[in-house]
């Protein structure tokens, strides 16, 4: 029956899922009742719904029983509403949205207008997932046969794609606006003859220091009257011709940020056409370049300053350009100190052409590297050979090759800065050489060196120093070193250091005990070094093993001591000899003489002539012996006697001598001619002895029968004027001359006559002991003087004495 009845309802004949479900459903338990009872209006409506491809839904009757078509079915999603809500009252089917939809439904039921909801988001499950779907839908009334509203038809239209497209459009417009708004370029669009800004982005507003609400919509030159003179003709030109205007670094005076200031802009005024027609306005794109213009100005300025700095710098500088190192410029210091060439020989030429000697050196390679890598190159104390006009010279240079960059980052040249440190290097080399030399000397001299830190008391010894102190050459602490010091010498050392604190110099000799038990004498010398405040900070010095010298010195000392003792003994013996000769020898002699004189007096009448003659001969011999003893004594005293110099008037001394020799002078009839003999520093008794002997000599060697004339003169003369080679030229001498008219002598004997016991004549001819002139010579020597004798046989002799004063 059922199938039969179904087949009877044409409006449910569709083959869709919902047509089938609706047809097969048992509607008898629902408010609308079995299908046969359905009014025609319902049937018609359902027929439309089920055959429509638009999603449709129907609420029918007072209970609002639900119907829907296949197109609507996906809207029910995965919930278990489908197919259960078919035939269910709306309130039960949509409890979750009932409050929202019931007013709309009621409005429609109450005879109101159909509702319209556009682009509502109603996600549905389809294509295997939940999709956001936009719908435009309406609730429209469905009348029954009586013309009364019996149901609400919901017709839906999916607008997802339209919404998405619109959204995209909106998004892109929004993005564009944002881009324009946020563009780092100032952008504004000016419309019409009054150039009214339609919009202006933030950058532009910032450039002109205006707020959007003050700027947009007002004629441009009301907002910016200060730019009218510059800008208006340009804008008009664009409006009139329709050609864009481009300006770079256009200088404009702007009132902004509370002051008038000069600004520079890169500008584009582009005509703006509505729909490709006439020019409606101008798109303005502006970039402010004030800073970079300023910077470039500054750069130019600083470049000029730089050039002038280079030229005036006392440090040699030059600039090479290009791969051939063309010398672009160089300062005076470079020309004069390093290159020693004329400017005209160099500027504009290639460096390696001007200085071919560089090719052999490392510099071309370094230059090339700086050019290619763009990295600066510095070097210290680099040896360089440069051939200037005054010859080839070797320098030591601190130098820098600094790349010069173009604006595109390429290296176009090299700036070279040079500091001549030849002197410094030479000085250091000299010091180093000296140090090495010193090291060799120290090594050769077998000195050990040491350094003592006065603060920490740390001592550092050279290897040899350690060896000398007996530490087997192993480094040792100061306390360890002191353990090697001989205990008896601790005080000597301490005293030396005390003294060094005062004088700054250390010197002492002490014994060190080596590990092998041997004892070594060590000479320690040191010099204190002070800080700026005069505080001793360090002592440096040397040690030297002086054991050998020391033992040699001690041996020498012992020998000297021995010799001294021997000499003292000999001296004493000599003294006693002198005494013996003066006293013990003279005494018996004197007695012989005295007794002979007694005999000759008393016994004269008892003696024969020959006896008397014999006694006289004895007396004469005794007299000779007495003279001999006295002369010898005088000679030995002249050697040993104390030499006390005092100022003496030689005239007086001569007078005394003449008194002493009164008898001899008288007997010989000698005449003494004496000039002023002056005053000198002398040993008076010796000087007297000398005069005595010289006068005696002249009298003794007088020519028989000729009156002796003795001439004595004196003067002070400069050594250089005296023509005696032994005399010092710049010294003054007392020159005493004693001249006689005696027998003289042959000049070949002029030295011999001063020797002891040298006699030129027989005893019987001239009396004399041969000691007198030796004594004279000795005395002259005691006065640090010299004596010369000149003579000729029978023409007299002259003795010249020169005593330094």
């Amino acid at each position: 029956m059922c199938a039969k009845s179904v087949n009877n309802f044409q409006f449910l004949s569709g083959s869709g899922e919902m047509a089938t479900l609706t047809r097969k459903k048992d509607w008898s338990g629902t408010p609308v009742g079995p299908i046969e009872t359905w009014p025609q209006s319902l049937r018609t409506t359902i027929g439309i719904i089920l055959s429509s491809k638009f999603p449709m839904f129907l609420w029918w009757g007072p209970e609002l029983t639900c119907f829907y078509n296949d197109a609507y079915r996906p809207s029910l999603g995965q919930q278990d509403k489908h197919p259960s809500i078919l035939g269910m009252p709306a309130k039960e089917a949509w409890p979750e949205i009932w409050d929202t939809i019931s007013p709309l439904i009621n409005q429609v039921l109450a005879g109101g207008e159909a509702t319209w909801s556009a682009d509502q988001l109603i996600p549905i499950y389809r294509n295997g997932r939940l999709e956001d779907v936009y719908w435009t839908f309406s609730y429209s009334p469905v009348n029954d046969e009586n013309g009364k509203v019996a149901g609400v038809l919901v017709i839906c239209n999916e607008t997802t794609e339209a919404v998405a497209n619109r959204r995209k459009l909106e998004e892109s417009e929004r993005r564009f606006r944002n881009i324009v708004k946020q563009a780092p370029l100032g952008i504004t669009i000016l419309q019409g003859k009054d150039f009214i800004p339609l919009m202006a982005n933030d950058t532009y507003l910032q450039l002109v220091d205006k707020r959007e609400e003050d700027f947009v919509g007002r004629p441009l030159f009301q907002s910016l009257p200060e730019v009218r003179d510059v800008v208006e003709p340009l804008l008009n030109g664009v409006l009139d011709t329709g050609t864009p205007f481009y300006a770079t670094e256009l200088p404009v005076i702007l009132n902004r940020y509370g002051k008038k200031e000069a600004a520079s802009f890169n500008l584009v005024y582009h005509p703006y056409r509505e729909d490709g027609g006439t020019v409606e306005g101008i798109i303005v794109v502006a970039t402010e370049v004030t800073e970079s213009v300023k910077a470039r100005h500054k750069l130019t300025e600083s470049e000029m300053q730089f050039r002038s700095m280079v030229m005036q710098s006392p440090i040699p500088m030059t600039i090479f350009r290009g791969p051939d190192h063309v010398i672009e410029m160089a300062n005076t210091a470079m020309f004069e100190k390093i290159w020693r060439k004329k400017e005209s020989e160099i500027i504009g030429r290639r460096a390696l052409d001007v200085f071919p000697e560089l090719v052999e050196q490392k510099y071309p390679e370094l230059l090339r590297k700086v050019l290619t890598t763009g990295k600066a190159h510095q070097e210290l104390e680099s040896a360089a050979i440069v051939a200037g006009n005054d010859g080839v010279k070797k320098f030591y240079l601190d130098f820098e090759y600094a790349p010069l960059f173009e604006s595109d980052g390429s290296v176009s040249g090299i700036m070279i800065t040079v500091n001549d440190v030849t002197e410094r290097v030479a000085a250091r080399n000299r010091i180093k050489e000296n140090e090495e030399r010193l090291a060799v000397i120290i090594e050769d001299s077998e000195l050990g060196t040491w350094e003592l830190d006065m603060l920490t008391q740390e001592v550092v010894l050279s290897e040899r120093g350690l060896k000398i102190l007996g530490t087997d050459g192993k480094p040792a602490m100061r306390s360890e070193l002191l353990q090697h010091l001989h205990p008896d010498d601790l005080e000597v050392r301490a005293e030396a250091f005390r003294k060094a604190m005062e004088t700054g110099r250390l010197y002492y000799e002490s014994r060190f005990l080596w590990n092998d038990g041997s004892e070594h004498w060590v000479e320690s010398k040191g010099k204190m070094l002070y800080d700026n405040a005069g505080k001793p900070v360090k002592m440096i010095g040397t040690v030297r093993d002086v054991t050998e010298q020391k033992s040699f010195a001690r041996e020498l000392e012992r020998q000297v001591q021995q010799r001294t003792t021997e000499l003292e003994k000999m001296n004493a013996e000599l003294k006693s000899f002198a005494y013996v000769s003066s006293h013990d020898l003279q005494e018996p002699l004197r007695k012989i003489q005295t007794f002979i004189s007694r005999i000759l007096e008393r016994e004269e009448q008892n003696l024969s002539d020959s006896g008397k003659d014999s006694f006289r001969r004895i007396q004469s011999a005794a007299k000779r012996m007495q003279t001999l003893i006295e002369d010898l004594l005088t000679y030995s005293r002249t050697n040993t006697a104390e030499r006390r110099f005092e100022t003496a008037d030689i005239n007086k001394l001569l007078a005394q001598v003449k008194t002493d020799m009164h008898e001899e002078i008288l007997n010989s009839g000698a005449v003494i001619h004496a000039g002023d003999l002056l005053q000198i520093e002398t040993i008076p008794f010796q000087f007297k002895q000398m005069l005595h002997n010289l006068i005696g000599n002249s009298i003794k060697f007088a020519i028989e029968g000729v009156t002796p004339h003795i001439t004595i003169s004196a003067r002070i003369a400069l050594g250089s004027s005296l023509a005696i080679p032994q005399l010092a030229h710049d010294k003054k001498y007392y020159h005493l001359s004693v001249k006689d008219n005696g027998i003289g002598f042959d000049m070949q004997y002029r030295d011999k006559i001063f020797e002891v016991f040298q006699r030129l004549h027989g005893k019987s001819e001239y009396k004399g002991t041969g000691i007198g002139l030796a004594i004279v010579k000795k005395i002259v020597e005691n006065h640090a003087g010299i004596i010369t004798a000149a003579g000729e046989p029978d023409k007299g002799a002259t003795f010249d004495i020169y005593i330094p004063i």
Partner: protein
Amino acid sequence: MKREISNVLLADDDEDDRMLFAEAVAELPLNLKFTTVNDGEALMRFLVQCNGALPCVLFMDLNMPRKNGFECLKEIKRHEHLKQLSVVIYSTSYETGIVDQLRQEGAQYYLRKPSQFEQLKQVIYDTLTQIEKSDGVAPTSENFVIYS
């Protein structure tokens, strides 16, 4: 005021010299009391025992055993009563330094022993005459040595 010399003392260890001196004095035309002592110690003993009756002049050898002339001179010149005594040094040797030293130490004259007897007589006479004339006043250094 002149001083009459009446009493002469000789201190000398040499017998020959004592004899020669005695003979010389004896031959001089003077009335003299002449005494000799043989060494320094004897001399000092003698002088101390004199007790006020000192000789007028002492001729003294330097080189004497036991106590030499230098020591005796020092003692005499330091002694309260003896320092008035005129001391004449009578010696074989003659050495300037020693002569000066003796003069400074208070000797009145220096007399070197002559080698001729006649000379001896002469210098003794001269010395005594000088002392009488000098009246105790010390001679100048030039006159100190009477014979050398």
